[in-house]
């Protein structure tokens, strides 16, 4: 017996500390997760269901709304996440400069969007970008545009608006991770490279990026999981419109449950697409992260 092992009495006590959490996690995460998997093979409306085999998964292939939702979600993912991560990296390497004045002020300002709830900021953005809203007024006064842009009703602009909104809300959040990562890097490395004549870009490319790699990987996976579940913003800014051009997978699941006749089986099948995407993308990102070591 080694000295780390605990006595029987202590062992039982230890489980007592853990059991309440376990009961809750099993009831509200693991059991439902497995339940959803079985439900995804059921067809029918509301509680009148029967075993339908792979029918729901076959329906996915021909469902044009699902394809739109999948396309939009992936589109938001591949455009928004890289833009945001790069922006957060650039800001944090600027803010890491100890000689910079007003560092705290800049940091607080850029982090501030994180205090808003997703619904609250979505409503603010919806108002700012309304037809007669502030942004159109500003752009027209600056003579950038002649007529107001239909941010909420034009497919392309609605998508751009969603991307702008998410980037506004989450860039500061990611920046904080990079800043705390950068603070653990010894300043003398940067000073030495400055003396050696490295440019700001070289320092960023060959020092900051490699040193922050584990954190970049973590935030990328985090943002990927978040974006794949995007709901609050599209629901509150565009309601998924116009004509489903901004609908996300989560919102489609919500619609399947509450907007139409509830189809639990099909909604569960759609939700498993997100599960598979998260597992696959996280796996790829971890592999890519390892390879460049």
């Amino acid at each position, binding site marked *: 017996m080694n000295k780390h092992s*605990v006595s029987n009495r*202590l*062992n039982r*006590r230890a*489980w007592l*500390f*853990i059991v*309440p*959490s*376990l009961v*809750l*996690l099993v*009831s*509200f995460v693991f059991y*439902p*997760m497995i*339940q*959803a998997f079985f439900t995804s093979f059921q067809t029918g409306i509301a509680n009148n269901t029967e075993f339908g085999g792979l029918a729901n998964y076959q329906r996915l292939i021909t469902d044009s709304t699902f394809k739109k939702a999948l396309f939009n979600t992936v589109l938001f993912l591949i455009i928004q996440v890289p833009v945001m991560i790069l922006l957060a990296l650039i*800001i944090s390497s*600027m803010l890491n400069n100890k000689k*910079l*004045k007003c560092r705290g002020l*800049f940091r*607080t*300002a*850029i*982090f501030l969007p994180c*205090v*808003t*709830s*997703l*619904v*609250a*900021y*979505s*409503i*603010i*953005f919806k*108002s700012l970008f309304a037809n*007669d809203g502030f942004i159109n*007024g500003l752009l027209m006064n600056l003579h950038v545009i002649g007529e107001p842009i239909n941010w909420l009703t034009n497919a392309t602009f609605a998508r751009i608006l969603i991307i702008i909104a998410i980037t*506004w809300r989450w860039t*500061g959040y990611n920046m904080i991770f990079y800043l705390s990562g950068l603070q653990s890097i010894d300043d003398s490395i940067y000073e030495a490279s400055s003396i050696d004549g490295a440019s700001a870009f070289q320092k960023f490319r060959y020092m900051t990026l490699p040193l922050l790699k584990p954190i970049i990987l973590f935030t990328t996976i985090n943002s990927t999981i978040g974006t*794949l*579940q995007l*709901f*609050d913003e599209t*629901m*509150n800014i565009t309601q998924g419109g116009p004509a489903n051009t901004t609908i996300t*997978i*989560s919102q489609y*699941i*919500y619609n399947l*449950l*509450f907007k139409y006749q509830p189809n*639990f089986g099909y909604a569960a099948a759609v*939700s498993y697409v*997100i599960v598979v995407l*998260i*597992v696959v993308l996280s796996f790829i990102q971890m592999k890519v992260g390892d390879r460049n070591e």
Partner: protein
Amino acid sequence: MSKKSRVMNVLQYVVLTILSIISIFPFFWMIIAATNKSVDVTKGTMVPGTYLLENIKNLMGSDLQYLTAFKNSLIIAVVTTALAMVVSSAAGYAFEVYKSKARDRVFSIVLLSMMVPFAALMVPLFRLFSKFNNIPVLKWIGLNSTGSVIIIAVATAFLIFFFRQNTKTFPRELIEASRIDGLGEFKIFTKIYMPTMKSTYAAAVVVTFMASWNNYLWPLIALQSEEKRTLPLVISAMGSSYTPDYGMIMTAVVIATLPTAIIFFIMQKQFVAGMTGSVKG
């Protein structure tokens, strides 16, 4: 300093200033809008008005039950946070202090739940909670109950992980000494560990309260009746109206954002620590 690096230096300030303005502007605009009439907001006024009290009066007088929603949100956030601090921290503490092979294995399964998207739980949870409504002892967490929103957020993998990480800094000698003094294991946790780990708890409180206060999707599913609605649900309903009263909506948004903004400015350090999942000291 060379000419080129001086230009870069100036450019840095310009970029950071522009980004800061973009970050702050929606807050500024929200406050301006809350103090003005809806028509003036639409006209693009940029000066604080004198219509705030009128907007508040309209908001309270409307049939939105804003005050009820505020009360619901507050009760849910406070009770969730209090319960989560006891339940999740106990688990995180035990995983670290009473290390064993079996518990480490259970811990890695707990971590797996972080990967589970809420979208995948929406369907089964809705059905599960609707069953609770028919079971007398579980009715208090059935659909449309405040309990249904609380119970789901009490134990989270994130919090358990967060407490386990921070427990690594907790001096083991304190536990040994307390055992010699004859304190039981639960007493050690409540009387020694909890007070010692104040800064960890502060960060966890901030992040849990925030998450609960801002939660939208599960309350949207679980709370269907008007008098149970939380603030995000009411604000969302206001935003989707066809004839939006911007002054009143922004007043509602300001009031809903106030608690989290105050917490942010008072406890900025813990706020950041809780968000990034790390606390030093």
